């Protein structure tokens, strides 16, 4: 293989890596060895071969041809490259267009914020970090009018409660058996092994049992206008659930669904909060629960849910979609998840009855319908969820 070709190929690998493919020197070597071994079979075959070698999932598989053309034939580089570079960047949810207006005013501040992200979770000079946070905080304040802005103590309390809650629903029985001294079943394999010295007479029995395995948790939080008063501390609550060591995922929804688990895992709570509040108040306004759930069912449910999943929906049930649509989506959701919990802050109000039509429909599918208007009511959930 001529040296020029090798350089071109490694350039191609670098190009793919920039666009989110996990390809490195090992892949370069592999590609070169594949190409070198055969007489050149034509561009179409090479494209297919490289597609198989370099793709790792469905998205990459779908994007490959475009990137291949961009590199080798110089087609659409200008359009493709910048757009894809943004999408390929990890740990950062793509920023919806709608934020741009809001962000414009604090362009410098958020630019600094992004610089901080790229340095890998903090590590930036103290002064810069603080300045940025003040900027975005006051910004969030001015735009959303969060009167019940949460105090640090309350936030900590919410997270602590969430942690306890997470512990309460952490385990479910697995199907895989492991050795245990007081297990309910006899482990023949170990019993035989153990009793060899006694001529195979099973005198000393070994046992096994079904261990408990962590429950997966998926939280869907309504961040619409009607929930605004509560969403702040629900977000802290979500952080507590997600931050624990269990498998968990989190989504915000209003008129559409946003995946926010990454933002919640942000080590610096304030940075995470800023990112979230940007996501949350960028939309505001109405709620389309059924549409949001449909997005979840179509796109995320298959991957995130299994028979050990508990789905928690936090919403007041004021929906602009039709109740029928909500029923359909809840039925789909219920089929995939192990348990469905609906937390409704309005339930804590005196004399509240679930008259919102969506709520009345939802009750048929929900395993646990509970209030969540105060920290105390969240704490009371622990017992409720432990029974699930």
């Amino acid at each position, binding site marked *: 293989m001529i040296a020029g070709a090798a350089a071109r190929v490694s350039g191609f690998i670098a190009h793919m890596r920039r666009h989110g493919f*996990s390809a490195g020197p090992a892949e370069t070597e*592999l590609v070169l*060895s*594949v190409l070198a*071994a*055969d007489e050149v*079979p034509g561009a*179409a*075959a*090479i494209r*297919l*071969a490289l*597609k*198989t*070698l370099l*793709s*790792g*999932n*469905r998205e*990459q*598989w*779908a994007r490959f041809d475009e990137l291949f053309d961009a590199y080798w034939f110089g087609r659409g580089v200008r359009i493709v490259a910048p757009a894809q570079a943004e999408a390929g960047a990890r740990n950062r949810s793509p920023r919806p267009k709608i934020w741009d207006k809001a962000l414009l005013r604090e362009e410098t501040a958020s630019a600094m914020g992004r610089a901080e992200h790229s340095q890998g979770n903090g590590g930036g000079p103290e002064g810069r970090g603080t300045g940025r946070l003040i900027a975005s905080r006051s910004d969030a304040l001015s735009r959303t009018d969060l009167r019940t802005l949460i105090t640090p103590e309350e936030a900590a309390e919410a997270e602590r409660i969430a942690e306890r809650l997470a512990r309460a629903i952490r385990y479910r029985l*697995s*199907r*895989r058996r492991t050795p245990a001294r007081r297990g309910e079943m006899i482990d*023949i*394999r170990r019993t*035989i092994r153990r009793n*060899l*010295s006694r*001529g*195979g007479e099973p005198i000393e029995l070994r046992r096994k049992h079904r261990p408990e395995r962590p429950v997966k948790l998926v939280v869907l939080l309504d961040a619409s206008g009607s929930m605004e008063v509560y969403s702040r501390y629900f977000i802290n609550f979500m952080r507590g659930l997600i931050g624990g060591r269990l498998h968990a995922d989190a989504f915000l929804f209003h008129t559409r669904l946003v995946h926010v688990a990454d933002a919640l895992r942000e080590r610096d709570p304030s940075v995470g909060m800023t990112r979230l509040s940007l996501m949350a108040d960028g939309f505001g306004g109405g709620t389309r629960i059924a549409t949001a759930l449909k997005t979840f069912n179509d796109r995320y449910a*298959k*991957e995130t849910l*299994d*028979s050990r999943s508990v789905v928690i929906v936090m919403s007041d049930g004021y929906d602009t979609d039709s109740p029928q649509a909500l029923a359909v989506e809840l039925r*789909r959701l219920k089929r995939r998840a192990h348990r469905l919990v609906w937390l409704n802050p309005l339930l804590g109000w005196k004399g509240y009855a679930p008259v919102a039509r969506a709520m009345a429909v939802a009750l048929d599918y929900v395993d646990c319908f509970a209030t969540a208007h105060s920290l105390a009511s969240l704490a009371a959930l622990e017992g409720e969820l432990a029974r699930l």
Partner: protein
Amino acid sequence: MKLDYAPLQRDLAEVGYIADEALAMALCLMIGLGRPLLIEGEAGVGKTEIGKALAQVLETRLIRLQCYEGLDANATLYEWNYQRQLLAIRAHERDAMPSEAIERHIFSEEYLLRRPLLEAISQPASPVLLIDEIDRADEEFEAFLLEILSDFQITVPELGTIAARSIPHVVLTSNGTRALSDALRRRCLYSYLDFPDERKELVIVRARLPGIDRRLAEQVVRFAQLLRREDLEKTPGIAETLDWARALVGLDIASIDTDPDAVQASLICLLKTEADLKRVPREVAARLIGKVG
């Protein structure tokens, strides 16, 4: 290392499996490089069939490991045949055999029950190892599988290490019910299988059902293609199309627009949930049939 996939594609077609260029190339590379191939795609696009067809083409054994939650090493590698071991101990005690000899005897290969992974590496000629629906197994199993797939040797404490006699051709399939680890994805070649286009599906139907009337086959395929565009819970796959075609042939229907009742009744071959059946009532079916023409 050959990048020429056409011969393999032809061979596959001969045993009744129609593979597109991308898949044929992927299989070609898998055989050439000796790396596992991960195939993803919706249910019913023919992922499992690849393993069977490949084994037929390569004239080798197909060893299948169906994954499920809770699958563990015992079920995939080996197990001792305890009942036989117990009987052997009893029998040899009567012969006054020394206990060390008994132990050596009952932990010989004779008492070893081979499970798919061990079976796959102890074949004289490379078999096709089909690890079906890997996404159903838990993450721990995935890690364990990675180890086996890179070393191709298995250690049985009582026997020692068993090295592979031949490296199997490994095909993994996934429906995407769980995100697979990056480590597994990096180890494997990757191919995504989509629903076939009309032309390819027609070839498949005619290859699988040689007796079918050409016009009926075209109608069936066209209908299935249109149905996939409807908003369904479970999109019908190729297997469903084939079932339906078989049903229509069995019902002696020459053209799907002649007998609406029978066609409507036979739709249960394509639509597998109650909600989907309700979503395609007589009127919708008639509209689709009208488009099929």
